[in-house]
C-alpha cells in the first residue's frame, strides 16, 4: 500500500465511472456512474491527507484532517445531488413515461 497505488486505483475507478456516465442511456445508471466518480475523488482526498500533509506540523496538528473535512463536504453535496436528481427522474418518468436519456429530447411537456 503506497500513495502511488492508491492514486492509481482511484484513477481507474474514476475512469470506470466516466465510461459509465458517457456510455449509458438510462438516467439512473448515469447517476450511479457519477457516484462512482465522487467516491474515487474522495479516496484521493483521504490518501493525500494521510501521506502528504504539508505545513500541518508547523501550524497545528488539526489541519492534518483537512482532507477528511473535504470528503465530508463532498459526501454532503453528493447526497443533496442524489436526492434532487432522483426527484427529477421521478418527475420525468411521470410526465414522459421513460427515463431513457436519448428519448428525453423535448423542452416542453
Amino acid at each position, binding site marked *: 500500500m503506497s500513495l502511488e497505488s492508491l492514486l492509481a486505483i482511484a484513477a481507474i475507478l474514476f475512469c470506470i465511472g466516466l465510461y459509465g456516465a458517457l456510455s449509458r442511456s438510462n438516467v439512473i445508471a448515469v447517476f*450511479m456512474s457519477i457516484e462512482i466518480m465522487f467516491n474515487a475523488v474522495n479516496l484521493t482526498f483521504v490518501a493525500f491527507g494521510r501521506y502528504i500533509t504539508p505545513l500541518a506540523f508547523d501550524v497545528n496538528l488539526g489541519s492534518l*484532517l483537512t482532507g477528511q473535512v473535504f470528503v465530508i463536504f463532498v459526501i454532503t453535496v453528493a447526497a443533496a445531488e442524489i436526492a434532487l436528481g432522483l426527484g427529477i427522474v421521478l418527475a420525468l418518468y411521470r410526465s414522459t413515461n421513460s427515463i431513457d436519456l436519448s428519448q428525453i429530447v423535448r423542452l416542453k411537456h
Partner: protein
Amino acid sequence: MIHDIAFWSLSVITIVSAIGVVVTKDLFRSALLLAVFFVGIAGFFFLLSAEFLAVVQVLIYVGAISILFIFAVMLTSDIQRGNPANRMQVVAMVVPALLLVAVLLGVFTSQWVELDAEVQDTVDLVHTRAVGGISESEFAAAVIDDEFSQKAIQEADIADLLVGEYVLAFEGVSVLLLGALIGSLALARGKGSR
C-alpha cells in the same frame, strides 16, 4: 503484510463491483453492486485510518443513497428495457482511456514529497481519533511520550476544523441541504396533488 492483503483484496472488490455497476443489464443488480462498491470504499477509508469517514460512508452511502437508488429503480420500473448503451460507445471508451493513461503517467512520474516515517504514527493517531479522545495505552502503542505533542494530538479534532476554519463552507452546505430538501419535496409533490 496484513495491510497489503487487505489493500489488494479491497482494490479487486471495488474495481470489479464498479465495472459490474457500469456493465450489468439488470438495474436492480447494479444498484446492489453499487452498495458493495460503497462498502469497499469504506474499507479503504478504514485502511487509511480514517475511521470516522468509513462509518459516515456506510451510514450515508450504503444506508441512504443506495436505498434511494433502489427506490428509484423500483418506482420507474424500466427494468425490462434494462440498461441499454447509447450510440456514443467509441467516444465513451476512448475519452476515459486517454484520461486514465494521462493520470497514471502523472502519478508514476511525479516525485511525491511524502511524510517522514517517524511522524506517520502521529498522523495515523490524529486521523483515527478525528472524533473523541485518546487513551494512555494508545499513546504508549504509538511511542509518543512527550507531553506537548500528546496535548496537540488530543486537541486535533475534525469538529474544530468544521466549525472553525471551514465554517463558511459548512453553513453553505447546510443551506444547500435545506434547498435540496425543499426542492425534492416540491418535485415529488407534483402538480396534481395540493
